[in-house]
């Protein structure tokens, strides 16, 4: 050993690296839950504020269209105004039928937003219930629900909706939302099932079982709250895609009937005027796209906020 070179025994001056108490709780920071953390992460992002502001605006327009225009979208359409340019009181001009474009966009909001919201609600509630029961209780229930889900999943949502809408006698925003939900629920159910499966394998569930908490209470108190995050993200994003789906159905002529004012119908009707008067097509499209975009943006922000891995990467 003598012939080898060694580092000399070195000791750092103690004042340079004072030894602190082992594992002491840092009490300088305020206590924060995971939701506090998520809120903090969202709060800092401009896209969160932009998308939420837009969504609030859009929902207000949908609920109270009368507040935003005094012009009637249907009555008072005069063919003399057909494809007319903007005039005072009619900032966006007129459709081919001579109706006020701005008023039609404002009044068309309701149908799109209603379909989006109701379809999302239906899908989320059914998906959460079905997914968590299947994932948590497993066995025959799980096998049955999963196979049924596979069958619905094998039919692309809008394709199935095309068939179902073509036989449904009454076409209202409610029925459209229902039809979309019939084919879209397996997606949320699958996500929920996966999340519930992994949450119910976690040690805190085992710990609660051993503590004597009943199985169903564990599902409600621990498993579902810890599995809900990915569902919230997907639900936010699918709200946007339901709005697009409604527009697509209306464009194909099997969504909402022409008597119901909706962006999809207006876009479909405007396709004949694209050469002469493109803004009649582009403006309702823009309204629709901004709505969808708001929900997509919000979904992205929520995803980043709820996914700790994504947060760490940023």
């Amino acid at each position: 050993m003598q012939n080898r070179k060694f580092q000399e025994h070195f000791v750092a001056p103690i004042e340079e690296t004072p030894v602190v108490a082992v594992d002491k709780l840092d009490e300088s920071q305020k206590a924060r839950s995971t939701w506090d953390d998520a809120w903090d992460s969202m709060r800092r992002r401009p896209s969160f504020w932009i998308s939420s502001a837009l969504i609030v605006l859009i929902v207000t327009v949908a609920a109270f269209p009368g507040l935003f225009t005094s012009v009637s979208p249907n009555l008072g359409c005069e063919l003399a105004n057909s494809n007319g340019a903007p005039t005072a009181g009619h900032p966006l001009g007129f459709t081919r039928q001579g109706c006020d474009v701005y008023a039609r966009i404002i009044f068309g909001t309701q149908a799109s937003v209603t379909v989006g919201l109701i379809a999302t609600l239906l899908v989320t509630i059914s998906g959460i219930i079905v997914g968590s029961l299947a994932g948590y209780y497993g066995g025959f229930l799980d096998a049955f629900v999963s196979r049924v889900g596979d069958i619905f999943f094998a039919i692309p949502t809008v394709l199935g909706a095309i068939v179902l809408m073509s036989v449904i006698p009454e076409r209202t925003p409610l029925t459209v939302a229902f039809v979309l939900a019939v084919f879209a629920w397996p997606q949320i159910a699958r996500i929920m099932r996966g999340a519930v499966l992994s949450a119910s394998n976690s040690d805190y569930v085992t710990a609660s079982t051993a503590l004597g908490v009943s199985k169903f209470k564990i599902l409600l108190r621990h498993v579902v709250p810890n599995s809900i995050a990915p569902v919230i993200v997907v639900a936010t994003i699918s709200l946007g895609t339901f709005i697009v789906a409604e527009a697509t159905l209306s464009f194909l002529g099997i969504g909402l009937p022409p008597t119901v004012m909706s962006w999809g119908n207006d876009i479909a009707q405007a396709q004949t005027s694209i050469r002469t008067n493109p803004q009649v097509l582009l403006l309702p499209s823009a309204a629709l796209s901004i709505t969808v975009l708001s929900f997509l943006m919000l979904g992205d922000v929520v995803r980043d906020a709820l996914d700790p891995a994504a947060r760490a990467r940023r």
Partner: protein
Amino acid sequence: MLWYTGRRILQMIPVFFGATFLIYFMVFSLPGDPILALYGDRPPAPGVIEQVRAQYNLDKPFIVQYLLYIGGLFQGDFGTTYSGRPVSDVMAQAFPITLRLATLALFFEAVFGIIVGLVAGLRKGKLFDASALVVSLLLISVPTFVIGFVLQYVFGIQLGWARTTVSSAAPYSELVLPAIVLASVSFAYIVRLTRASVADNLNADFVRTATAKGLSRRRVVSVHVLRNSLVPVVTFLGVDLGALMVGAIVTEGIFNINGVGGTVYRAVILGEGPTVVSFVAIMVIIFVVANLLVDLLYALLDPRIRYAK
């Protein structure tokens, strides 16, 4: 692998029957009469209705109707349209066109989607990444038919670079514009998926180990990051086929293409129930089979699946 393949095929069988049954049930068993709907506001002569009902087996119990229908499917009998033409005839004519359109669209979305997604993922947080994200969000939020109208107007009418409608022969050259329209939304999804997956894999331990081996950055990215990132993209392509089918209905409608989508589009507009059912059923079958193929491809890409018990 053999076991895996067999199991996937077995799993497909109930899905196949379930899905076709569901579609058949929706059309022929729900309240609302498809035959009456066919005639719109002018009721046909009473005898005609009975005749049509018999033709479509609608006078028999529902389950028999369905079994007859499925039996026909297996013998290549896809039913007839209301105009009396066998659906299989219409398919034979429409299919090659749609196949060309879908191939082009898949090519566009996969190749460009993966390239853009890869570059964005490698430069996360940079300008390219931010622009790619914004563009992809925009593409997803604008409905396909609006993109179709706008591109048709700009390239077909204003610039005159492409035909606004496709001729009945529908060669590849005329299908480029419709394929771009068809691919646009899926392209956006692939960009987002590839980007997220590349960014994830860049942080993976095995990528660090690969770098520590002394591999070049180019090799690390192409062999370790890209290959692993393709696994979820391939899975997505299977699910995406459903979106392509719906997109094809819209796109072929806009560009007046006589493919499968265009046929469904016209059948929907005209309220031709049986044609819609036959076509949608076949689309669903294609979807199910394609997903099976994708699952097998997935297993090829990921040995953990391939060797799973």
